[in-house]
């Protein structure tokens, strides 16, 4: 009984706690946004893990699909429900914004999934590092396309999503963004879990083991590749939509290859083909990024106090992006297979299996 419902219980308690605290404004805006970015990063890393871990390809343009999702869902949302200088007055009554919002996000996901075809179709013939290039090129192409569409702001970006969130909060006064991020994060992890443990999903690991052998064993590799790439990029699109609505502003520059690198790091830090590893590493990585915001001034003060650096040089936040990669390199040296390897939480702590079941 407990084993069956423990995961539901834990999720309900955490979700409830976060949302209540957000509602009562116990958590500052900063803490809330960090929590929401954790959710977005979980979606990103688990969905990339589907391609890079379970299917054994090397996709490094995940942020491109995120970009498609972010733009499509924000344009759609603003077009339908908000007054804006690009689209003029709202098409529909803003009172329906709340009910339409999940569909807007899903539409972003569908658009991103279609963009995933850009990578999926070449993958029939190409594998490995050549496919990696195609994904990088796809990322550049998507960003460059959006930068060249002047009507939606080009490289200056697009904004106006805050109005949609305000009108959602006018209908029912709840902190809607944390709620949607939480729901979609759980949904995404659940979908991926269901997908890879299904009979059809076994074909995905078959491709990662040996593509030719899988083909001979009557696995329709092209079909599986198409669906997996589309699912993965579609989920990235949903993450992009959430990202856009959290910030209230998107510009193509925030989805460049650097963002893809961050997602790649999260996947490989967690371990290839480990869903719980991806979730853990997304949480750890986001917290680490934020923690350095506070650690670096401390290091700076300390270094000044013991006079090891000259008084007119300050250790600035730029050092964050020196220290984090350094930390990751050191981590890789000690655990070259990531935090979890390719095992799940239940494989590392078998006793935990008594207490939960997650399917």
């Amino acid at each position, binding site marked *: 009984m407990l084993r069956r419902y423990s995961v539901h219980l834990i999720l309900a308690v955490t979700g409830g706690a976060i949302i209540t605290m957000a509602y009562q404004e116990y958590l500052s805006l900063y803490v809330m946004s960090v929590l929401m970015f954790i959710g977005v990063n979980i979606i990103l890393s688990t969905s990339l893990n589907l391609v*890079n871990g379970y299917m054994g390809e*090397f996709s490094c343009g995940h942020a491109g699909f995120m970009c498609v999702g972010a733009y499509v869902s924000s344009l759609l949302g603003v077009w339908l429900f908000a007054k804006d200088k690009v689209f003029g007055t709202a098409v529909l009554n803003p009172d329906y914004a709340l009910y339409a919002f999940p569909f807007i996000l899903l539409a972003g996901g569908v658009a991103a999934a279609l963009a995933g075809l*850009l990578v999926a*179709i*070449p993958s029939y*013939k*190409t594998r490995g*590092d*050549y496919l*990696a*290039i*195609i994904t*990088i*090129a*796809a990322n*550049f*192409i998507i960003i*460059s*396309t959006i*930068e*060249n569409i002047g009507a939606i702001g080009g490289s200056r970006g697009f904004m106006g999503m805050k109005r949609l969130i305000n009108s959602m909060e006018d209908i029912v006064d709840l902190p809607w963004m944390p709620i949607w991020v939480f729901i979609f994060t759980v949904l995404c992890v659940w979908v991926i879990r269901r997908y890879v443990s299904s009979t059809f999903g076994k074909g995905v690991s078959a491709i990662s083991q*040996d*593509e*030719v*052998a899988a083909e*001979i064993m009557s696995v329709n590799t092209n079909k599986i590749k198409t669906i997996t790439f589309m699912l993965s990029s579609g989920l990235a699109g949903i993450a992009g939509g959430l990202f856009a609505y959290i910030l209230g502003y998107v510009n193509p520059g925030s989805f460049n*290859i650097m963002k893809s*690198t961050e997602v*790649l*790091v999260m996947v*490989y830090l967690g371990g*290839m083909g480990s869903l719980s590893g991806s979730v853990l590493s997304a949480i750890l990585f986001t917290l680490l990024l934020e923690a350095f915001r506070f650690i670096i001034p401390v290091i700076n003060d300390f270094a000044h106090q013991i006079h090891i650096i000259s008084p007119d040089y300050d*250790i*600035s936040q*730029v*050092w964050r*992006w*020196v220290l984090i*990669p*350094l930390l*990751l*390199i050191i981590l*890789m*040296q000690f655990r*070259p*297979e*990531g935090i979890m390897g390719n095992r799940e939480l239940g494989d590392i702590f078998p006793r935990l299996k008594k207490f939960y079941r997650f399917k």
Partner: protein
Amino acid sequence: MLVSIIQNIINALQWGSFYALIALGYTLVYGVLTLINFAHGDVFMVGAYIAFFVSTFLLTTIGLPGWVVLALCIPLTMILTSMVGVTLERIAYRPLRKKGAHRLYVVITALMCGLILENANLALLGASRKAFPPLIEVYVYNIGGVIFTNLKIAVIITAILVFLFLQWVVTKTRVGMAMQAISYDKFAVPLMGIPLDQIIVVTFVLGSGFAGLAGLLFAMSYPILDPYMGALIGWKAFIAAVVGGIGDIRGAFLGGFLLGAVEILVVAFFPSTYRDLIAFTVLLAILTWKPTGLFGIAQTTKI
């Protein structure tokens, strides 16, 4: 018309030379180790900065004339940059390789090394851009309307010489044959008495050294340096290497010049913001048509 064609060809050759020189580092390392050394673009950036420091030191502190500085700067930059490349190999890649980590973890480590080089540079030297001192006098020639400088010609000739040199190294020397052997079979080669690690170090020396040379030439041609200059050019050079057929020296050069030509052509006919979009679309089309690149050999898989 003819004048503008020749003018664009010269521009494309010069711009492609940089891509070719960087692409070669990717291709050498990939050919031997099947490792995508994503830090290579930043090694190029470090090369440009090393050239900057060496040349300003020689010019202002010692006060040598420009051409002597250039003559000293080329070998010094190449040696110092190759030391950076070898350091990365020794500290970051080799331990992972010895532990038998999955190939992609080494790739991620390379990405991290690139980030460290970029941001450490930014943190230590500040965000202000550095202006590279002029080393030689730039002459502008105008032959029948085609305008070019001695520097442009020097860049193109250097790239071609480097190509011939590397082609000779890889196909004719013992080290080059060892490299080919390693890329053929990594497990049997140490059994034949070929020192694996030394050959890999030589590969990194060659690749990073010529990235340093590219950095010096780039800094002389476009004398503004900033820490992120290597990132985009590095990614593009990598794509060029793959389009040419990664692991093949000829492919790297052809891919580099091809990418240079496409970019120059796009800028000649379209607004310059379309440069990346069209260049990458063309490359994507080439890869879809020939999945292993222009010089790549289709791999057969044994079951």
